[in-house]
């Protein structure tokens, strides 16, 4: 059990590419931290730096209060779950799980006990334990990779997109399994993914990264409800947030590009008259109605549980998510409650505050 602390951690590659820029955050003992961001944002590099697979060029990494920068991966007391699992193809499942412990010169009886315990937790029977990895299904390989991590009883689990090689159904299943397992073991975890849904559902603590920097840190719902920047607002949530550009014409009144007006809560956002801003609306918080601003409907997607209505407002793409499909489709107008609006400064991309 340990916390993981990053202090001004940075990584510059030999070629001069600055992959990770002065990142600081603290993962408390036992919590599940998800690093999320688009491809190439530096999240995997950061995780590999924590694991010791990449060198850290500046700042300090502490695992369990101990400085880890100069430690070899195995001395850091971590376990790493790879995207492609990286199971040793020549070893049986049992040996795959026991290998790390054998290298630590753990007594045989204890290795056996720990492997059996992990196998039981992960529902791997004796027959599977004796197989080679190539004779396993994707989900079983994933579980073996987890098993290899938990037999070590490490201070921290590090996951590098462990679910992206699975099909959609299995991914949802394993997502729940991993989360349950982590709850049960109470092991501090760092989990990298580019899938915002995985990030939202699994995290105690969400770190949104972009271009080597942290955009926002917070609990998933806090990040969802109060995105600090346009990037976070657009990245978190599916279908993603709609954005409408406009100018503040009056206190609490936003004029869109085509001249239509939209009201917002002036007490929540301090704006100057004439300021260019971007208003964000979550698809499920907009509603088609008889009254409201003009909405040009272009396409309807039925989801079964609801429907997505794609269209345009003042030249910008806009999507509405309707929960129930009971009501007949309303025509042409869009209603957005004032409290559903997120406002961002158009120039800086930052959220406006009160």
């Amino acid at each position, binding site marked *: 059990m340990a916390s993981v602390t990053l202090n001004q951690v940075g990584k510059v590659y030999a070629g001069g590419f600055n992959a990770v820029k002065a990142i600081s955050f603290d993962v408390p003992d036992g919590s599940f931290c998800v690093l999320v961001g688009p491809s190439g944002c530096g999240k995997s590099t950061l995780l590999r730096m924590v694991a010791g697979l990449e060198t850290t060029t500046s700042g300090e990494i502490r695992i369990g209060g101990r400085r880890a920068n100069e430690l070899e991966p*195995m001395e850091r007391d971590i376990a790493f779950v*790879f995207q492609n699992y*990286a199971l040793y193809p020549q070893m049986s499942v049992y040996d795959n799980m026991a290998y790390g412990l054998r290298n630590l010169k753990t007594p045989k009886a204890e290795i056996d006990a720990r492997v059996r315990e992990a196998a039981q937790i992960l529902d791997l029977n004796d027959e599977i334990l004796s197989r080679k990895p190539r004779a396993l299904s994707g989900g079983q390989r994933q579980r073996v990779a987890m098993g290899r991590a938990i037999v070590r009883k490490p201070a921290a689990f590090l996951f590098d997109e462990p679910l992206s090689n699975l099909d959609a159904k299995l991914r949802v299943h394993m997502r729940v399994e991993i989360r349950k397992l982590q709850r049960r073991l109470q092991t501090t975890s760092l989990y990298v993914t580019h899938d915002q849904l995985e990030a939202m559902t699994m995290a105690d603590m969400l770190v949104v990264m972009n271009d080597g920097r942290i955009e926002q840190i917070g609990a998933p719902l806090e990040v969802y409800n109060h995105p600090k920047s346009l990037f976070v607002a657009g990245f978190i949530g599916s279908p993603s947030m709609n954005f409408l550009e406009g100018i503040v014409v009056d206190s609490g009144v936003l004029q869109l590009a085509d001249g239509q007006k939209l009201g917002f809560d002036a007490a929540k956002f301090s704006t100057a008259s004439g300021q260019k801003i971007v208003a964000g609306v979550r698809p499920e918080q907009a509603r088609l109605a008889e009254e409201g601003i003009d909405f040009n409907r272009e396409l309807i997607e039925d989801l079964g549980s609801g429907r997505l209505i794609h269209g345009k407002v003042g030249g910008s793409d806009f999507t509405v998510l309707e929960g129930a499909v009971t009501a007949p489709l309303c025509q042409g107008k869009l209603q957005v409650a004032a409290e559903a609006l997120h406002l961002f400064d158009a120039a800086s991309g930052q959220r406006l505050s009160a």
Partner: protein
Amino acid sequence: MVERSPFANIFAHVILIIGVLIMAFPVWLAFVASTNAPDTISNGQMTGIPGGHMIENYYQTLFIGTTSTTRAPVGMMMANSLIMALLIAVGKICISLLSAFAVVYFRFKFRMLAFWLIFMTLMLPVEVRIYPTYKIVADLGLLDTYAGLTLPLIASATGTLLFRQFFMTVPDELLEASKIDGAGPFRFFKDTLVPLSMTSIAALFVIQFIYGWNQYLWPLLITSRDNMQTIVIGIRKMLVTQDALTEWHLAMATAILAMLPPVLVVVAMQKYFVKGLVETEK
């Protein structure tokens, strides 16, 4: 051929059978000669059917040897050849595995230079560098020793290149997983790389065993004592006689015996050998 008419089938088989006969006939003749009495062969009375002296001829060949030319039992020559071929095959596999491991997994100074130097030895087989190699072996006092016989043939690049190509296809994650599991470089080599290379090792073993077994020029230069003769040299010596009759029945028995070990190695390792050469599954 897509269509299989009976005529094409027969035609293909006739061609193949003719090929097999051309290949097998000399071997069969050698075997027949090795089972006849010496005077039957020299009088030209030998038929295509094995004679009745097989056991005594092979006994004399293996344990006594020819009376005039080689003065040593062929059993000993076979032992010499076997030791030489095994040392070359095993030595080359060890050296190649280690050097490929170094070139692929370690970032040291002059790494590429080392690689190219190894690569260039491909262009310098023993025949080309025979004088300097002989001089070095002679100066080191290794004439008439197994070390002198095998060391110069062990050093070459083919195996290193084979393993280098293979190691480059091994996913980096396996190395990283090993690091996290606390396996140092040697552990990774022993526990992961070598087991994964097993089929390549088998292929290289077959090739190098036959290469070593068939060596003629180098053993001819480096060995002079009778008890260091290899079987290939022995056959050659048996055939060239100044003032006695060539003992054909013994020479042919020796030829048949010389063929057996390479055949055994190929037959025993054929499965791995083919797998090692076509290995693409990763």
